[in-house]
């Protein structure tokens, strides 16, 4: 560093950098990630308003039409009436995406939210109560974390047949409570010994006060991280089920669209928009979630932040 006076621009940049580091939540990765997910939600909302959602019904257009500017194997060109083309049974791809994309996100968020609530409750109970209760919860979460959700759900759905979106989210939630439980239990156990919790206890604070006012705020970045990781797991599981031909049969989901595309040989017939668009949307969703998670890592682990200087 020279001692020459800094130019105004440099000065400002530096000030901005300092401010950014003062508030770890102002993290570009977090913004981009949230932006991508928000984009999908907005696509779903605006699409329902400005596009005709009835086009998701079978036979609402010519089947297998490409997006405008392309030709399919029959030599048909795309039209702007169907900007993303149509799939094998004549459903408009754009309408399908508008309906299906938020569905996948919804399943992920709901499952993870339920799992999180269960995890917080069990984790705190386990950490605070200790003894037998702790043993049971600990062993149960150890055991359940090893069982891959996809396979149990395959058994469930092949036995019960069609399920709705909410039911699917509930089922998946049964497999995403373990990691928050373990995380919170470990944190609670270590925090119980820390000075400020002892202090709160000595000053006569109630257990609920200690849990929610003293401990929970410190756990927020971890909880968010675990929440986002679970959303990813839940969506992956849901898409997995859908691609195996299970999952909701009557409600459009991105995985189901891919399933139908594979089964109709869309890859060989070069109908790339049929499987490619839902694939792309799912990829965007997962990348958004990953960016949020990376951002959260930087929030909770300041050592990682230095790297980007």
């Amino acid at each position, binding site marked *: 560093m020279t001692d020459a006076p800094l130019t105004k621009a440099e000065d400002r940049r530096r000030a901005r950098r300092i401010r950014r580091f003062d508030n770890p939540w102002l993290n570009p990765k977090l913004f981009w990630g949230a932006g991508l997910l928000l984009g999908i939600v907005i696509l779903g909302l605006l699409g329902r308003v400005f596009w005709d959602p009835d086009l998701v019904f079978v036979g609402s257009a010519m089947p297998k039409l490409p997006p405008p500017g392309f030709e399919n194997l029959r030599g048909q060109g795309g039209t702007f009436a169907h900007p993303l083309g149509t799939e094998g049974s004549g459903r408009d791809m754009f309408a399908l995406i508008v309906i299906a994309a938020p569905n996948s996100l919804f399943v992920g968020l709901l499952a993870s939210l339920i799992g999180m609530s269960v995890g917080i409750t069990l984790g705190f109970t386990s950490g605070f109560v200790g003894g037998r209760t702790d043993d049971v919860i600990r*062993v149960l979460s*150890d*055991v*359940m*974390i*090893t*069982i*891959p*959700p*996809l*396979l*149990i759900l*395959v*058994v*469930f759905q*092949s*036995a*019960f*047949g069609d399920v709705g979106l909410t039911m699917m989210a509930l089922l998946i939630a049964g497999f995403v409570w373990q990691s928050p439980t373990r995380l919170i239990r470990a944190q609670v156990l270590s925090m119980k010994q820390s000075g400020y919790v002892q202090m709160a206890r000595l000053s006569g604070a109630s257990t609920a006060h200690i849990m929610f006012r003293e401990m929970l705020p410190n756990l927020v970045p971890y909880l968010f991280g675990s929440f986002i990781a679970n959303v*990813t*797991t839940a969506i*992956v*599981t849901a*898409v*997995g089920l859908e*691609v*195996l*031909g*299970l999952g909701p049969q009557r409600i459009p989901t991105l995985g189901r669209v*891919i399933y139908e595309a*594979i089964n109709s040989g869309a*890859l*060989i017939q*070069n109908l*790339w928009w049929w*499987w*490619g668009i839902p*694939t792309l949307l*799912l*990829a965007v969703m*997962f*990348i958004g*979630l*990953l960016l949020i998670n*990376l951002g959260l*890592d930087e929030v909770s*682990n300041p*050592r*990682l932040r230095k*790297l980007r200087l």
Partner: protein
Amino acid sequence: MGRIPRAYLVNRLITLGLTVFIAATLIWIIPRLSPVDPAEIMLGRMAAGAGAVANSEEILAQLRANFGLEDPLLVQYTKYLWNIVTFDFGISTATFPTSVASLIAQALPWTLGLMILSLVITFLIGNLLGALMVWEESPNLVKVAIPAAMVFTSIPPILSGLLLMWVFAAKLQWFPLTGAYGLTVEPGWTWDFTLSVIEHGTLPALSIVIVTFGFWALGMRGLMITVQGEDYVTLAKAKGLRPRAILYRYMIRNAILPQITAFALKIGLLIAGQVLVERIFAYNGMGKLLYDAILDQDFPVIQGVSYVIILMTALSVFLVDLIYPFIDPRIRHEARP
């Protein structure tokens, strides 16, 4: 192995046993809660084949007796548990006289082969790249290119598989679209067959590799940052050791160990991901077996495949837990985490 304290071993064994037991119980209970009757499905299949079935009531009763559905539930359950311990999952209803165990025995080597191959590749590539991201000496290109490639980490392998299939199999036709080996080659230890297997396995393996190496790279990056600041690295630098030697012998060696535990937690997702890759590539493994069984509503096969995959997952986690302290002497076996 005298070095493992008994309490720790017992604890891990109990967890393993409970995992398998709970999974097996769930697999057994769930179909029984559903209104679907396997005997009726079987009859339905016969009717579909023959047009009509005479004296269907008697056949139904006979089938139910064969499946053991007439016994009290507790008897069925204990029988089931015993059968599962001996890997007897009954008889497939879709390919009738074939036992589920033999179907699984045919599919399992394919799945294991593909899995181990892609795991080893990703583990090596991922950890090396993650280390290079932190290493001071690595070229700038590496530091820019790897984070960009990491974006793929979050994508499940089925999506990358579709993309690779389209580009390399459908468009460029460099690789075959589906299957585990060509239709024209005879399975056996011949050169043609091996070549065909490699040709067919490249895309499925690649689709797993490109989306999972980033997971290891990410973890390695975090660990390397911790290691970077350690005194022994500073000392090694002060001694004037070659940077490459510091990277391999001082940094990676110390950073790689916790990655092995991460592996234990990830294995379930990896296996589930691979099942789906096999399904889209119609690869002759457990994934295809499961998918076909779902289409045919072949419950014994669905149960058997699910159970074997869960058992595989639980066993790998158990083994990693046991081996880990041997690799990393800093960790002692404790009865409790």
